[in-house]
């Protein structure tokens, strides 16, 4: 299908984008990489009055090292994340997960900030942001503010972004020495959104357990969700099969066209078990 018509404005700065959005009202949309928004318009799932193109705001693009963290500009493309030496070195979870996001041509256009702002329940980057305790930098008509990942993802395509508010950067703390990551997903075809996925960070070892754990599942609920039961079990030093058994306890899991709710719970447990086994195998080898 073809999109309905809309007005088009290109913003040169983040401030200009926010001002344009304020003028245009609630039916305007920011256009970043367009890899989700333009598909939705072609389907007529959305009929905005105006697209505000933020794609050329240079200040919102690129990866910078700041005190103890990497600050990723919202317009940094998936392909740039995949090629970044800083990401590979400091955020191996993101470096691994980015290869599961769509296909090369889509990664050449799609942006990190677009993925976070869209907050698809089955998307990899929101799950990584949550596992890594990222902080979202937002800019609205009333100025800038920061929101922690734990308070950012609120529901199905729902985030803490107010209408007309722009995500400018995502700041991701560099994990401490001794921390490690796990990532796995099940998809029917290469590059598809996950039927079920796991992104996790484990803090340094303390005896049989861990200092802390952030276990995030995606593709199984209305958004990327942490599993408090699995986190507690891991911190307490429970065996991988015990941690996996409680993987989705207390979580609202939804079935979809890919799999029923019970199947999704099973997938989540299997992914967690596999990654915990892999990590303990690797630790025993050294």
């Amino acid at each position, binding site marked *: 299908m073809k999109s309905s018509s*809309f007005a*088009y404005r290109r913003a040169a700065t983040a401030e200009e984008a926010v001002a344009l959005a304020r003028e245009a009202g609630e039916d305007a949309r920011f256009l970043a990489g367009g890899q989700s928004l333009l598909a939705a318009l072609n389907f007529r799932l959305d009929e905005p*009055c105006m697209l505000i193109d933020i794609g050329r705001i240079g200040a919102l693009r690129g990866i910078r090292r700041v005190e103890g963290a990497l600050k990723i500009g919202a317009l940094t493309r998936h392909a740039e994340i995949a090629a970044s030496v800083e990401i590979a070195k400091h955020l191996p979870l993101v470096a691994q997960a980015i290869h599961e996001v769509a296909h*090369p041509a889509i990664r050449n256009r799609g942006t990190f900030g677009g993925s976070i702002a869209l907050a698809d329940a089955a998307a990899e980057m929101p799950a990584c942001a949550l596992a890594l305790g990222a902080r979202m930098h937002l800019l609205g008509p009333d100025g800038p503010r920061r929101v922690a990942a734990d308070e950012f993802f609120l529901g199905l395509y729902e985030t803490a972004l107010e209408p007309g508010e722009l995500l400018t950067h995502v700041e991701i703390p560099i994990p401490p020495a001794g921390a490690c990551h796990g990532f796995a997903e099940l998809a029917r075809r290469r*590059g598809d959104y996950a039927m079920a996925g796991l992104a996790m960070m484990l803090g340094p070892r303390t005896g049989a357990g861990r200092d802390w754990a952030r276990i995030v599942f995606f593709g199984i609920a209305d958004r990327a969700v942490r599993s408090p039961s699995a986190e507690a079990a891991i911190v307490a030093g429970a065996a991988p099969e015990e941690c996996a058994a409680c993987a989705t306890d207390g979580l609202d899991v939804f079935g979809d066209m890919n799999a029923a709710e019970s199947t999704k719970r099973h997938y989540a447990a299997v992914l967690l078990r596999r990654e915990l086994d892999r990590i303990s195998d690797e630790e025993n080898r050294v």
Partner: protein
Amino acid sequence: MSAPVQITLSINGEPITATVAPRMMLVDFLREVAALTGTHLGCAHGVCGACTVRLDGASVRSCLMLAVQAEGTEIETIEGLADSGAEADLLDAFHRHNAVQCGYCSSGMLVSAAELLAQGGVPDRATIRDHISGNYCRCTGYQSIVDAVEEVARTRAGKAGAGA
């Protein structure tokens, strides 16, 4: 409200200026305004890869990009790739290996394959499949496409090795 916008871009090395509605996708601009029908529209939502073109050197979906977003960029389509001769060996390998049947996927497939080959070296078959995973072909079963890309990678690497 949706006032037309004037854009200037380069397509296959030639500058073009036109006035377009904001909602016009690049694929429609290429086919209907620039009359370059080698780029195909399949699904219109990024899944099939038939519309893949080169934008400033990188492969992109022309069905998921507005023509107005292409302002000031350099686009290369299959027509440019074929005319320049830069990918003549790849086109030839597609012919010889029967990697083309109905041809609907071919222009996008070639743009994706050329992007992988430009990275140099000889990618293994899994890497080739991974790189063309976003390009659907309903005819060939992919085997012959992977054969063609692999052969070109080997031949180019051999030449580069011999030249060094």
